[in-house]
Protein backbone atom coordinates (compact mmCIF):
# COMPACT_ATOMS: atom_id res chain seq x y z
CA UNK A 1 0.00 0.00 0.00
CA UNK A 2 1.64 3.22 -1.10
CA UNK A 3 1.32 6.47 0.78
CA UNK A 4 -1.27 7.74 -1.64
CA UNK A 5 -3.67 4.89 -0.91
CA UNK A 6 -3.43 5.34 2.86
CA UNK A 7 -4.13 9.07 2.59
CA UNK A 8 -7.13 8.39 0.33
CA UNK A 9 -8.60 5.86 2.78
CA UNK A 10 -8.26 8.24 5.74
CA UNK A 11 -9.90 11.06 3.76
CA UNK A 12 -12.80 8.82 2.74
CA UNK A 13 -13.38 7.63 6.34
CA UNK A 14 -13.49 11.21 7.65
CA UNK A 15 -15.98 12.28 4.96
CA UNK A 16 -18.15 9.20 5.60
CA UNK A 17 -18.37 9.90 9.34
CA UNK A 18 -19.29 13.52 8.64
CA UNK A 19 -22.05 12.59 6.18
CA UNK A 20 -23.70 9.89 8.30
CA UNK A 21 -23.59 12.04 11.44
CA UNK A 22 -25.29 14.96 9.72
CA UNK A 23 -27.88 12.69 8.06
CA UNK A 24 -29.00 11.53 11.50
CA UNK A 25 -29.11 15.09 12.84
CA UNK A 26 -31.44 16.53 10.17
CA UNK A 27 -35.00 17.56 10.94
CA UNK A 28 -37.53 14.68 10.94
CA UNK A 29 -38.70 13.66 7.48
CA UNK A 30 -41.93 15.48 6.65
CA UNK A 31 -41.83 18.47 8.98
CA UNK A 32 -39.93 21.35 7.38
CA UNK A 33 -39.41 24.43 9.46
CA UNK A 34 -40.16 27.60 7.49
CA UNK A 35 -42.82 27.45 4.80
CA UNK A 36 -44.21 30.98 4.45
CA UNK A 37 -42.92 31.69 0.93
CA UNK A 38 -44.22 28.43 -0.52
CA UNK A 39 -47.57 28.86 1.20
CA UNK A 40 -47.92 32.27 -0.46
CA UNK A 41 -47.10 30.75 -3.86
CA UNK A 42 -49.64 27.93 -3.44
CA UNK A 43 -52.43 30.30 -2.35
CA UNK A 44 -51.96 32.94 -5.08
CA UNK A 45 -50.92 31.01 -8.15
CA UNK A 46 -54.34 30.77 -9.76
CA UNK A 47 -55.11 34.45 -9.34
CA UNK A 48 -51.86 36.05 -10.39
CA UNK A 49 -50.60 33.67 -13.07
CA UNK A 50 -53.69 31.94 -14.40
CA UNK A 51 -51.96 28.54 -14.45
CA UNK A 52 -53.16 25.45 -12.60
CA UNK A 53 -49.73 23.89 -12.29
CA UNK A 54 -47.72 25.23 -9.35
CA UNK A 55 -44.36 23.92 -10.55
CA UNK A 56 -44.68 25.49 -14.05
CA UNK A 57 -45.60 28.87 -12.59
CA UNK A 58 -42.55 28.74 -10.31
CA UNK A 59 -40.20 27.68 -13.16
CA UNK A 60 -41.36 30.27 -15.71
CA UNK A 61 -42.94 33.13 -13.78
CA UNK A 62 -41.76 33.53 -10.21
CA UNK A 63 -38.21 32.29 -10.90
CA UNK A 64 -37.72 32.93 -14.60
CA UNK A 65 -34.07 33.97 -14.34
CA UNK A 66 -32.98 30.48 -13.30
CA UNK A 67 -34.58 29.08 -16.47
CA UNK A 68 -32.67 31.64 -18.53
CA UNK A 69 -29.37 30.52 -16.97
CA UNK A 70 -30.20 26.87 -17.58
CA UNK A 71 -30.99 27.53 -21.25
CA UNK A 72 -27.56 29.14 -21.57
CA UNK A 73 -25.79 26.12 -20.01
CA UNK A 74 -27.63 23.73 -22.36
CA UNK A 75 -26.72 25.79 -25.40
CA UNK A 76 -23.04 25.93 -24.36
CA UNK A 77 -22.83 22.16 -23.84
CA UNK A 78 -24.40 21.37 -27.24
CA UNK A 79 -22.08 23.84 -29.01
CA UNK A 80 -19.01 22.29 -27.30
CA UNK A 81 -19.94 18.72 -28.30
CA UNK A 82 -20.45 19.69 -31.95
CA UNK A 83 -17.14 21.60 -31.88
CA UNK A 84 -15.16 18.58 -30.58
CA UNK A 85 -16.50 16.18 -33.20
CA UNK A 86 -16.07 18.60 -36.08
CA UNK A 87 -12.32 18.37 -35.52
CA UNK A 88 -12.35 14.58 -35.52
CA UNK A 89 -14.23 14.39 -38.78
CA UNK A 90 -11.75 16.25 -40.96
Amino acid at each position, binding site marked *: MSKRNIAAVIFLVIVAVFFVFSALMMHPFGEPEKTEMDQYIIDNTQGETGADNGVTSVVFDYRGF*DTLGEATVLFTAVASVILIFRRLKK
Partner: protein
Amino acid sequence: MIFNIPFIAVAALVLIGLYAVVFKRNLIKIVIGITLIESGVNLFLITLAYRKDSTAPIYTASPGGIMSMPVPHALTLTSIVIGVAVLALMLSLVVYIYRHYKTLDVRKIGGGEEE
Protein backbone atom coordinates in the same frame (compact mmCIF):
# COMPACT_ATOMS: atom_id res chain seq x y z
CA MET B 1 -33.72 6.72 13.74
CA ILE B 2 -35.79 4.85 11.18
CA PHE B 3 -37.66 8.04 10.37
CA ASN B 4 -34.70 9.54 8.50
CA ILE B 5 -34.21 6.77 5.93
CA PRO B 6 -34.29 9.11 2.84
CA PHE B 7 -31.42 11.17 4.27
CA ILE B 8 -29.35 8.04 4.96
CA ALA B 9 -30.02 6.89 1.36
CA VAL B 10 -28.67 10.23 0.09
CA ALA B 11 -25.51 9.82 2.19
CA ALA B 12 -25.00 6.26 0.87
CA LEU B 13 -25.34 7.35 -2.78
CA VAL B 14 -22.83 10.19 -2.39
CA LEU B 15 -20.33 7.98 -0.55
CA ILE B 16 -20.44 5.21 -3.17
CA GLY B 17 -19.95 7.78 -5.93
CA LEU B 18 -17.02 9.31 -4.08
CA TYR B 19 -15.40 5.87 -3.64
CA ALA B 20 -15.67 5.25 -7.40
CA VAL B 21 -14.07 8.61 -8.24
CA VAL B 22 -11.11 8.22 -5.85
CA PHE B 23 -10.17 4.55 -6.12
CA LYS B 24 -10.86 3.38 -9.68
CA ARG B 25 -8.49 3.54 -12.65
CA ASN B 26 -10.69 3.29 -15.72
CA LEU B 27 -11.97 6.62 -17.06
CA ILE B 28 -15.49 5.33 -17.73
CA LYS B 29 -15.86 4.17 -14.12
CA ILE B 30 -14.89 7.63 -12.89
CA VAL B 31 -17.61 9.16 -15.10
CA ILE B 32 -20.18 6.73 -13.66
CA GLY B 33 -19.13 7.82 -10.14
CA ILE B 34 -19.75 11.48 -10.99
CA THR B 35 -23.24 10.59 -12.25
CA LEU B 36 -24.00 8.78 -8.98
CA ILE B 37 -23.08 11.88 -6.96
CA GLU B 38 -25.43 13.99 -9.10
CA SER B 39 -28.29 11.53 -8.53
CA GLY B 40 -27.73 11.74 -4.78
CA VAL B 41 -27.96 15.53 -4.83
CA ASN B 42 -31.21 15.46 -6.84
CA LEU B 43 -32.76 13.03 -4.36
CA PHE B 44 -31.76 15.31 -1.50
CA LEU B 45 -33.48 18.30 -3.09
CA ILE B 46 -36.76 16.42 -3.50
CA THR B 47 -36.63 15.06 0.04
CA LEU B 48 -36.60 18.57 1.45
CA ALA B 49 -39.95 19.44 -0.18
CA TYR B 50 -42.26 16.99 1.55
CA ARG B 51 -44.88 17.81 4.17
CA LYS B 52 -46.74 15.18 6.08
CA ASP B 53 -49.69 13.62 4.14
CA SER B 54 -49.47 16.06 1.25
CA THR B 55 -50.16 15.68 -2.47
CA ALA B 56 -48.66 17.21 -5.62
CA PRO B 57 -48.93 21.04 -5.97
CA ILE B 58 -51.31 20.91 -8.96
CA TYR B 59 -54.93 22.10 -8.95
CA THR B 60 -56.28 20.07 -11.89
CA ALA B 61 -58.36 17.16 -10.47
CA SER B 62 -56.60 17.29 -7.12
CA PRO B 63 -57.97 15.28 -4.19
CA GLY B 64 -57.73 18.21 -1.76
CA GLY B 65 -55.70 18.60 1.38
CA ILE B 66 -52.36 20.33 1.89
CA MET B 67 -49.77 20.45 -0.91
CA SER B 68 -46.01 19.99 -1.08
CA MET B 69 -43.72 22.96 -1.54
CA PRO B 70 -43.19 23.67 -5.27
CA VAL B 71 -39.87 25.56 -5.20
CA PRO B 72 -37.46 22.58 -4.69
CA HIS B 73 -39.23 20.74 -7.52
CA ALA B 74 -38.27 23.58 -9.86
CA LEU B 75 -34.63 23.54 -8.71
CA THR B 76 -34.41 19.76 -9.25
CA LEU B 77 -35.66 20.16 -12.85
CA THR B 78 -32.83 22.56 -13.61
CA SER B 79 -30.28 20.28 -11.96
CA ILE B 80 -31.31 17.20 -13.97
CA VAL B 81 -31.01 19.03 -17.31
CA ILE B 82 -27.58 20.40 -16.40
CA GLY B 83 -26.47 16.89 -15.37
CA VAL B 84 -27.38 15.50 -18.80
CA ALA B 85 -25.46 18.26 -20.58
CA VAL B 86 -22.31 17.79 -18.46
CA LEU B 87 -22.44 13.98 -18.95
CA ALA B 88 -22.55 14.40 -22.75
CA LEU B 89 -19.53 16.70 -22.66
CA MET B 90 -17.54 14.34 -20.40
CA LEU B 91 -18.17 11.33 -22.63
CA SER B 92 -17.15 13.16 -25.80
CA LEU B 93 -13.91 14.20 -24.09
CA VAL B 94 -13.25 10.53 -23.16
CA VAL B 95 -13.67 9.56 -26.85
CA TYR B 96 -11.21 12.29 -27.83
CA ILE B 97 -8.62 11.11 -25.25
CA TYR B 98 -8.90 7.50 -26.45
CA ARG B 99 -8.28 8.51 -30.06
CA HIS B 100 -5.09 10.29 -29.03
CA TYR B 101 -3.49 8.07 -26.35
CA LYS B 102 -4.92 4.63 -27.31
CA THR B 103 -5.51 3.73 -23.64
CA LEU B 104 -8.09 4.46 -20.95
CA ASP B 105 -5.91 4.04 -17.87
CA VAL B 106 -5.85 7.23 -15.87
CA ARG B 107 -2.29 6.75 -14.61
CA LYS B 108 -0.73 6.39 -18.05
CA ILE B 109 -2.04 9.55 -19.74
CA GLY B 110 -0.52 12.94 -19.16
CA GLY B 111 3.16 13.59 -18.65
CA GLY B 112 3.89 10.28 -16.89
CA GLU B 113 4.04 9.20 -13.22
CA GLU B 114 5.67 11.32 -10.59
CA GLU B 115 8.67 9.66 -8.96
